[in-house]
């Protein structure tokens, strides 16, 4: 689901910190390879898109959005340089 579509949804959104294993490239950039959430690890099959994007639903200061494929499903994860934190967005139905 794309970021734009998610924004159109209803409910409360929470910023969920995740663990990320990344490969650092010679130019200083990095590519996430695996992520950890709730004690489980998930292999990132590929990164489809990288862009500077700060989601409107949660606190995010100048983040980079990675659209990644995990288990054949596209998901968005974010890296915030300000806090050096990776996070995803979880929708909590109210």
């Amino acid at each position: 689901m794309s970021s734009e579509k998610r924004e159109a949804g209803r409910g409360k959104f929470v910023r969920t910190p995740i663990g990320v294993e990344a490969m650092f490239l010679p130019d200083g950039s990095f590519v996430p390879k695996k992520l950890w959430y709730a004690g489980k690890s998930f292999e990132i099959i590929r990164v489809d898109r990288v862009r500077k994007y700060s989601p409107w639903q949660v606190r995010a200061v100048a983040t980079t959005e990675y659209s990644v494929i995990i288990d054949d499903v596209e998901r968005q994860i974010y890296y915030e340089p300000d806090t050096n934190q990776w996070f995803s967005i979880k929708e909590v139905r109210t």
Partner: protein
Amino acid sequence: MSDRAILHSDANGFYASVEMALNPELRGKAVAVCGSTEDRHGIVLAKSELAKKAGVKTGMVTWEAKQVCPDLIVVPPQFDYYVKYSKLLHEIYSRYTDEIEPFGMDECWLDVTHSPMSAMEIAEEIRQAVKDELAFTVSIGVSFNKVFAKLGSDMKKPDAITEITRANFKEKVWCLPCADLLYCGRATSKKLASFGVQTVGQLASLSTDVLKHKLGKNGIMLWNYANGLDTSRVAHETYTAPAKSVGHGITCNEDLNTPEEAQKVIYALSQDIGTKLRQMGLRAKGVHLFVRDNTLNVAGWQALLSSPTQDEQTIASEAFKILGRNYLWQKPLRSLTVTAINLESADEPVQLSLLCDYSAQERRGKLHRAIDEIHELFGKNALFPAIILGENKMPHATHDEIIMPGWMNV
């Protein structure tokens, strides 16, 4: 030669927008960023679109704003983040040009004349990039000069682009009130209205002789602006306007009731001025003192110094003398601003006076260098004049980095 392509980008409700990016739960609500009531800065600094629609205005006292908009959410300012977001905005602009002239923290002119892309394409890309990357919106004016570009960014808000061309400026701009024009403030608008000039078009059709007679050289400047003849350049991003004065002011926690209390504040304010003058390699030939009493009446006086100086003690002592000469203490003081004026380069030769002890000045110079080094290493509270010791009714947090809009580069 082809026309210039100038953009003026204005972040909509900048402080409030940053607050919403930092706390998305504020989105869609009436929000106002207000100074601290305890520090007696309790006024609206910025407001969201909804608060604006409800009648909240910048500069309103906090309780007054809550009266016009009972649902108003008041948040304290986070200046560090505003500076950060201002730099992030600047980074987006710098993808297109290095001719970027800031006008305050949230507004910038960009000259994109030499870009391979059209000005409208660039404006659209910037608008989208700010929305995506920073999660707030900008309004952009596109035109062939700075004044119309700024006017354009004010015409449609929020999240909009307005183009003013040579072909359409008479139709788009001339119907607007004169007050919409840059540097046509309340007093000028009132003067213009007194001889029947209400709109930019009426201003443009006046004779320059009449305007010169009524408004002096500002009249000619405004006539040029109204007729699309502004030729001022957009400064390069590395350009810093030479300082015309260095000042420091403060609203006190409590009213100052005696000259002794005012003296402490004046000396404390002057510390930063001396440091800044030395950092900038400047000397002051005069001092200006601005005061506001507890009924918000204001007054200002100035005096020339016997010789140019970077010494905070000399500046403070002169400012205190100015206060003694001019203020009658019929009402307590609420705020004070000390400003070093008539600045010159510290390298400029000085006419020596036979009656002055220059060896003492030289020793003082060495003392300042030592004090500056101590301040750099251990902070400015590590060493300060004894006169400032004790309660001085000054708020502790100050924000030196805030750049307010002044005059654009010409």
